[in-house]
């Protein structure tokens, strides 16, 4: 079981090792795989709970797709919005901390959605309440504080993809 | 004009101001933050002086380990320097 769990962690380690070294000589390949196995053995139990999901290629494809979408479209829109506010002489901000409900289940998806929200300028997750399934988001432009608006504006976009990746 | 010297002078001036504030600041956590700024400025200076090895060893120690240790210490002791 641990062996299967090791694979994604070891792959991550190996990739980081090789990219960081910037070489593919035999020396690096051998030592890189040794390091990967070593760190995979140490940290697999910590990182991965379901060994079956971790090896699914479809999820990785969705991850790549989501990454591209997120890094181009979502980020671009958010940046333009916040930059407008910064350079606007009157600085039209309308900030507040709002509840934003979420519907994803496991740890990875919750955290990925939260990080995605924080990484887009304009919204920052201040707190995460797992009991009531709410993010508390500091939003630079509160359109309306009711759960429906916040969900539509902040969470929905990311949740759609994250569900496909992690659940 | 050489970019190295310009940036070096700038980094050292940043470090000077940060050092001064770190020494005179009464609130110790703020002093720690200022000393971290000084360390980052020194890091840039060391980088510009072409000493990557030193950067690699200096940065963890002064940005990470000193502030952490001093924060542990402040947490266990007192936060504000008495006048």
């Amino acid at each position: 079981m641990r062996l299967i769990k090791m694979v994604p962690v070891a792959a991550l380690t190996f990739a980081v090792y090789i990219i960081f070294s910037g070489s593919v000589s035999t020396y690096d390949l051998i030592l890189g795989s040794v390091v990967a196995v070593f760190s995979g053995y140490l940290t697999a139990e910590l990182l991965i709970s379901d060994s079956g999901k971790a090896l699914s290629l479809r999820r990785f494809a969705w991850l790549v797709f989501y990454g591209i979408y997120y890094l181009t479209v979502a980020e671009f829109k958010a940046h333009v919005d916040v930059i407008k506010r910064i350079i606007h002489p009157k600085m039209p901000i309308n900030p507040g901390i709002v509840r934003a409900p979420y519907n994803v289940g496991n740890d990875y998806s919750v955290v990925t959605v939260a990080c995605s929200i924080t990484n887009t300028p304009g919204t920052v997750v201040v707190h995460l309440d797992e009991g009531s399934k709410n993010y508390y988001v500091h939003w630079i432009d509160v359109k309306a504080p009711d759960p429906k608006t916040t969900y539509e504006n902040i969470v929905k976009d990311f949740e759609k993809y994250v569900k496909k990746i992690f659940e | 004009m050489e970019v190295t010297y310009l940036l070096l002078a700038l980094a050292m001036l940043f470090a000077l101001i940060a050092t001064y504030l770190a020494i005179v600041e009464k609130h110790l956590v703020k002093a720690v933050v200022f000393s971290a700024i000084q360390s980052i400025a020194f890091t840039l200076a060391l980088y510009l002086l072409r000493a990557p090895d030193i950067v690699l060893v200096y940065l963890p120690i002064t940005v990470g380990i000193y502030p952490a240790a001093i924060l542990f210490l402040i947490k266990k002791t007192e936060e504000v320097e008495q006048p």
Partner: protein
Amino acid sequence: MIDYVMVVVGGVLLFVGAICDLLGALGMNRFPNFFVRLHAATVGTIGGAFYPLIGASLIAFGSEFLGFYKWFVGGCSLVSAFLILMLAPAGSHALARAAHKSKASEVTPKVVDHLEEDGGVS
């Protein structure tokens, strides 16, 4: 040819990133309180660090004059780009939560503060 394309694209990304950086710094100075400044800081870290790092790695991959070590430079910038993408949100979230919990910063001006209403960070 491919080198030129990579370098030019990288240069554009780098330039955009630098501008984002400047605007983020400007926003840091203009915005009224800590929680709003968080957004300017996000512009500074994601727009101002992640994208230019990708740009820098493209420049490095295209720059033949760096020799064998161009892969090393590109790899470094890629790794740091993904580290920043991963670490920056966690860091600012932790700071925001701690600031709200310790009441170090006021949340004014504000429209609404649901977190305060629900009893704050436990």
